[in-house]
């Protein structure tokens, strides 16, 4: 298939999807986290009756409203692209994606839109209790609507609970709960929302730091920092725990991604964890130009084996083990997987030809063979490999995945320390005097967005060439359209999103400069 699909079409289609997904994700995590912080702030107001907490809640609610309004519906563009740029993929996964996305649509519409209206319009019009319940339900609804798209994404990384139908070329869901409760889906959801909580915590601390630097709204800023820092600290701990779980699941289901994250070429017992490393831009392994040599590397001995298997001497496969196979560790060579994938495609081809030519008995037998447990486990399992011609195609961009992963981890560690310092300074009433820390707090806002983007880069670039792990590579998922039309829409999206981003930043900075006041929405 590589020969018949224009590679620039794949690259532009991927680029367009990445652009829209990353821009969309600029808006989402703040919504996920800030809604819970609002709910906590309003709960304090409800419990204490202190009007200062009402003022605080209303200000951050306004910030949330701006972010929500600018970001809402930006994700729909991704769905447009499924139908146009990725129609084969869209068809292939249709049945699996249909249920979660439909639930998301209904949930987002009913929960978010109903309760958001009460949140904004209901101050002093509905009871304090009902208003508070609405704020909590908005937070829960916003996060639950993220659940469904993350379940769908997790399925792409680890397809479970489905059966491929050779007559329709679609995957049909056979067990909703296997899809919904797959460990990868649960972990991905928890890791993603906790990253949103951390972002929201940092965002609030950063903006409050600005007020303190300007010596404005001091009680408001201190109280905001206190809530955001405690919330962010707890979320950070949760983020680390789910990140650890995520690495273990990646090792299990996407070992090539893990090898790329760690820059691990040769698998070994007692594998070390690369804490830091820099690749040579030119020097590569003489046998494989996708494997860049390290110029510099700091490794923690045995830590990777321990992190993945809770055993300091356990074996962790590297890129070369996954490419060439490792009999001792039970790893099949990629070339064998390609042969098995081609066998699966060949069987499908023979079945369709037999059907077309009216050879009913043969068609029946071929379908029986295709659907048998043995064939599914040993051949269809590698269906996607059948579209590939070169084993090296299964290696993602190692420098991009490696650097993104390490940027995410280093920044994540800083955020944890940042929350601890924020709590310490605010509890000891030193925060207003710590001007350097306040400046760093403002600078940490862009860093948390970078960490978010890096995380998604690891997740999505790391699983290349797969759109659906092992079953459908990008090359087979892309529609037969002209690269020119994708290029045009790429730049259109870049323009629209940049305008939206400028609008967001402008409106938000204006409102922040105005500061908290008692009314208006």
């Amino acid at each position, binding site marked *: *298939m590589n020969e*018949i699909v224009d590679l620039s079409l794949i690259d532009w289609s991927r680029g367009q999807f990445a652009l829209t997904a990353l821009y969309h994700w600029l808006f989402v995590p703040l919504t996920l986290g800030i809604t819970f912080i609002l709910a906590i702030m309003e709960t304090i107001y409800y419990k204490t009756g202190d009007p200062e907490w009402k003022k605080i809640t209303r200000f951050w609610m*306004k910030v949330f*409203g*701006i972010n929500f*309004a*600018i970001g*809402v*519906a*930006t994700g*729909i*563009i991704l769905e*447009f*692209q499924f*139908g*146009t740029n990725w*129609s*084969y993929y*869209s*068809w*292939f996964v249709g049945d699996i994606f249909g249920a979660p996305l439909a639930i998301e649509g209904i949930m987002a519409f009913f929960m978010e839109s109903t309760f958001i*209206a009460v949140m*904004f*319009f*209901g101050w002093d*019009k509905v009871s304090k209790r009902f208003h508070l319940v609405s704020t909590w339900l908005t937070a829960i609804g916003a996060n639950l609507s993220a659940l469904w798209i993350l379940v769908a994404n997790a399925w792409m990384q680890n397809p479970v609970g489905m059966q491929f139908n*050779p*007559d*329709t*070329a*679609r995957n049909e869901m056979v067990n909703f709960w296997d899809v919904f409760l797959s460990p990868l889906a649960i972990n991905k959801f928890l890791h993603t929302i906790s990253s949103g909580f951390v972002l929201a915590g940092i965002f609030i601390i950063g903006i409050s730091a600005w007020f303190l630097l300007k010596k404005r709204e001091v009680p408001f800023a201190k109280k905001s920092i206190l809530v955001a820092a405690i919330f962010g600290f707890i979320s950070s701990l949760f983020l680390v725990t789910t990140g650890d779980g995520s690495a273990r699941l990646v090792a299990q289901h996407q070992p090539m991604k893990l090898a790329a994250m760690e820059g691990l070429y040769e698998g070994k017992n007692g594998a070390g964890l690369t804490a830091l490393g820099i690749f040579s831009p030119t020097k590569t392994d003489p046998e494989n130009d996708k494997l860049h040599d390290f110029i510099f590397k700091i490794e923690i001995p045995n830590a990777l084996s321990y992190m993945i298997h809770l055993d300091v001497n356990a074996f962790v496969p590297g890129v070369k083990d996954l490419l060439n196979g490792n009999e001792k560790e039970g790893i099949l060579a990629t070339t064998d997987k390609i042969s098995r994938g*081609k066998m699966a*495609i060949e069987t*499908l*081809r023979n079945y*369709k030809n037999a059907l077309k030519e009216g050879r009913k008995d043969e068609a029946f037998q071929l379908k029986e063979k295709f659907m048998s447990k043995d064939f599914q486990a040993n051949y269809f399992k590698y269906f996607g490999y*059948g*579209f590939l011609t070169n084993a090296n195609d299964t290696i993602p961009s190692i420098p991009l995945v490696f650097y993104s992963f390490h940027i995410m981890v280093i920044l994540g560690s800083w955020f944890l320390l940042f929350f601890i310092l924020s709590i310490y300074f605010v509890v000891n009433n030193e925060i207003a005097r710590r001007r350097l820390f306040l400046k760093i707090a403002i600078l940490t806002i862009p860093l948390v967005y970078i960490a978010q983007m890096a995380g998604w880069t690891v997740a999505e670039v790391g699983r290349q060439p797969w759109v659906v792990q092992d079953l459908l590579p990008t090359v*087979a998922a892309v*529609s*037969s*359209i002209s690269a020119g*039309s994708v290029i*045009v*829409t790429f730049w*259109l999206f870049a323009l*629209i999103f940049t305008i*939206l981003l400028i*609008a967001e930043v402008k*409106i938000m900075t204006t*409102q922040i400069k105005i500061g908290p006041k008692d009314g*208006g*929405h």
Partner: protein
Amino acid sequence: MKKIVKFYMDGFKEMTLGRTLWAIILIKLFILFFVLKLFFFPNLLKKNFSNDKDRGEHVIENFIKSK
């Protein structure tokens, strides 16, 4: 029911910043659905084939082209 309608009506009337935000949402939705979706993002399989059987056949044909 009247109370709910009034609640929403009053809420929209009293909006200040919300008016700007709603304008942005509406312009955005217009661009998304009436420009991008309509002119640039047709659902190819829906557009080119009249039923699911033909769509499935087309996708399989593309899959089995691979050698």
